[in-house]
């Protein structure tokens, strides 16, 4: 079973081109995808790429005669949201923080009164200057 993070890792260049194509036009077969993407890639390369995207749960497929028809499992916005979340989670929640320096951590224990008091302090400072 693939985990959420491996399934939503940033895609390679060809994978991304295939996803872009399918967000514009779907469902399509591997052959149609090959035609749309031009002759730069072999049929088997596109087939492998689409199969990989299916295994990553980014594409759905259904049988159509001898071939598969592929369509995106999520729209572009949902994909973007998931992949950003997958990249952020290790940094913000899983302790991979030694690689970064944050401006401020947004904590849940700061109440409205405290924030309002600080804003008054800042406003007073601005007035004095």
């Amino acid at each position, binding site marked *: 079973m693939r985990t959420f993070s491996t399934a939503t890792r940033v895609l390679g260049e060809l994978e991304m081109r295939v996803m872009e194509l399918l967000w514009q036009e779907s469902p399509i077969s591997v052959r149609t995808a090959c035609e749309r993407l031009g002759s730069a890639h072999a049929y088997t390369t596109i087939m492998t790429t689409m199969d990989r995207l299916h295994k990553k749960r980014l594409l759905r497929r259904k049988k159509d005669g001898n071939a598969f028809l592929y369509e995106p499992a999520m729209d572009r916005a949902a994909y973007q949201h998931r992949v950003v979340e997958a990249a952020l989670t290790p940094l913000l929640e899983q302790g991979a923080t030694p*690689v970064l320096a944050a401006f401020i951590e947004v904590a849940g224990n700061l109440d409205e009164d405290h924030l309002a008091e600080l804003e008054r302090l800042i406003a007073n400072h601005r007035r004095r200057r």
Partner: protein
Amino acid sequence: MSLGSVAGFALVFVVCAWALSSIGGLVLHRSRRWLQRQGPMAERRAAEAVAVVPVVLAAVAVATLVLQSALGVDHCEAHDHHAHLCITHGAAWLERTSAMVTLAVAGAAMLVRLVLLVTSFARGARSIRELHALSRDAGDVRIVDSDRPFCFVAGPTRPAIYVSSRVWSALSEAERSALVAHERAHVRHGDLYLRVALEVFLVAAAPLVGDRVRAMWLHAGERLCDAHAATVTGEPANVASAMVALCRLNTPRPVASLGFTPTADELAGRVQAVLEGRPTGHRTAARLGRAVLTASLIVVGATIVASEPLHHVFETLLG
């Protein structure tokens, strides 16, 4: 060198490093209010000293013992009531249960820390690469389309400032400038590299000391960057207001363990420090650095001069 000898010298390193870092942690705790009054640079220097000095002195102690043994001035012939710290007669260390248990516990703790550190670096570096690909260049910063409130600088070779679209759109132009100036100060101070070095030294720190040292270092670093941003932008209020604005963007899922977790008091302390233009403590930090260096050199000299009795003390206590 036999396995027993290696175990003996490793035990000396662990015991020295933990004992010295425990003392350092205690001193840091007792002097925290004084350090706070001096300024963040002084706090930072003190935290760095507590992280680095115990490891260096422990390494010097071991190196002295190894050298003494290599030069043939150890006293294996004279004492047979304890295990010997020498490169040829160390087998008895493996038979000392208490010594081996101490070494095993400390070694396991250090190994676990090291593995966690390497894992978090690898995971973090991969996430940053992905975030770089997913973010868009907006001049000074890279905008990440996310409704989470965050802003940080990351990237070991090409540091970049990553800001969530939510934060970027919520801040005023002046607050954005303050935020960028703060993050650039992290790059200018070399915080990303210093953090790596600090974490490596803290692998050998005594239990609980590492967390205290890290927290002080991070908190002081943020206040230093606040002060730098206030100087660069010429308007401390913008730095303070950017901090408060970011805290206002709180979500039901708070961002955990980023840098440090500001309590209400800590946030207020940071805001007040930047508004009042409190001293950064560079002068005290320089004095502190010189004092620590001098003291360390004296200890190193004393270790070398008194290597013979020290050798016997370690053998008697540990073996």
